[in-house]
C-alpha cells in the first residue's frame, strides 16, 4: 500500500433482531421489501431507522418508522383495529 493513497472499504452496519406483531395480523413490508406475515420474530435489520408498513386486506395499511437499537429488545406491534 502506498502512503497517501486512499482505498474504499465497505463497512456492513451491525444488524439487530426485531420482533413484529400486529392485531389481527398484517403483511409486513420493510423498506419496500416484503418480510412476511406476522407474527415475525428475529427479523434481522441494520441498526438505524427503517420504514415499516403493516398491511391487512380489511384494515388497510399503516406506516411506522422503526429504529433498530443494539441494546434491544426491538419489538414493534401495531393494532390495526384501532
Amino acid at each position, binding site marked *: 500500500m502506498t502512503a497517501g493513497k486512499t482505498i474504499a472499504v465497505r463497512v456492513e452496519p451491525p444488524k439487530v433482531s426485531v420482533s413484529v*406483531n400486529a392485531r389481527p*395480523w398484517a403483511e409486513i413490508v420493510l423498506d419496500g421489501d416484503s418480510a412476511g406475515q406476522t407474527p415475525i420474530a428475529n427479523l434481522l435489520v441494520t441498526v438505524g431507522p427503517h420504514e415499516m408498513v403493516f398491511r391487512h386486506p380489511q384494515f388497510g395499511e399503516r406506516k411506522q418508522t422503526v429504529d433498530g437499537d443494539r441494546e434491544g429488545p426491538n419489538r414493534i406491534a401495531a*393494532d390495526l383495529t384501532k
Partner: protein
Amino acid sequence: MRLSSQGHRHESGTLVIVGIVLVAAGSRARAPRIRSSAAKDLYASAAYEDALSTLSRTGRRLGAPDVARQVDEYRALLPVCAGPHAGSRIDRGVDDPRRNRWRGWTAADASPRLEPMFADVRKRLLPSLIRERFRTREIARSIRRASRGAEPQLTEARLMIAEAEELGVKDDGLADLSVLVDGFLQLIRSVGRSTASRAAGRPPRPSPSRAAAAPSARPVASRRGSRPRQPAPRSRVARGRRARAHVYSVDDEGVSPSSGRSTSACRR
C-alpha cells in the same frame, strides 16, 4: 360467660381460616386465566419469549376449558414466533396428549400463514394420535365390561377420524379403525339404552343401532395389540349376563385367539 367468649373466639378463628382457604382456592383457580391473559398481551406486543415463559408457569392446572384452549393455542403458536427449530416444537405442541382438544386454528389474531402450517403438522400426527386414543387401558376395560366409561374417548377418536378424513390423511388402517370405533360406540350405547329401559321397568326397545352393532357383538379385541378371540363357553355366557351384553377379551375363561379383519386394526 367465659366459656361463651372462648366459643365465640373459636368460631371466629374457624371463619378466618375458611375465608383464607376460599380466597387461596379462588386465586389459584384464577391464576391460569390471569397468566393466559398476560401471555396474550405479551404476544400482542411481540414479546414472544416472555409470553412463552409466562405460559410455562401456568403448569398443568389449566382451569376453565376456554382458558385451557387459549393456553393450548398460544403454547402451540409461540414457538413458531420464537425462532428457529419451530417445526419440531410445533410437533411437540400438537402431539402433547393435553393438546388433543386443539383442532384447527381458532385464534382470532393468527395470520393465514399459520393455518396450513398447523394443518400440515396435524395431518402428519393424526393417525398416531387416533391410535393412541384408541389403545387406552380404560377403553379396553370399558369395552370388555360393556360399560359406557369409554364413550368420551371413543367419541373423541371418532371426531379425530372425521378430521383426518377431512384433511385427506392417507392411512389405510384408519378405515378399519373407523369401523371398529363406530361398532364399539354403537355397542356401548345400545347397552346403555337397554340398562336405562330396564331401570325404567320397560322391556328394552329394539333399535337400529343394536341391529347395526350385532356383527360387533361377537367377542372383540380390547387389549393393546390385542388378539382376536372366539365366543366364550355357553356356561359363562349364561352366568355372566342376563339382559346385559358382555364383550369378552383374552383374559376371559375359554377365550382363545383366532384370525379376523377387524381386530387387525387394533394391532396397528
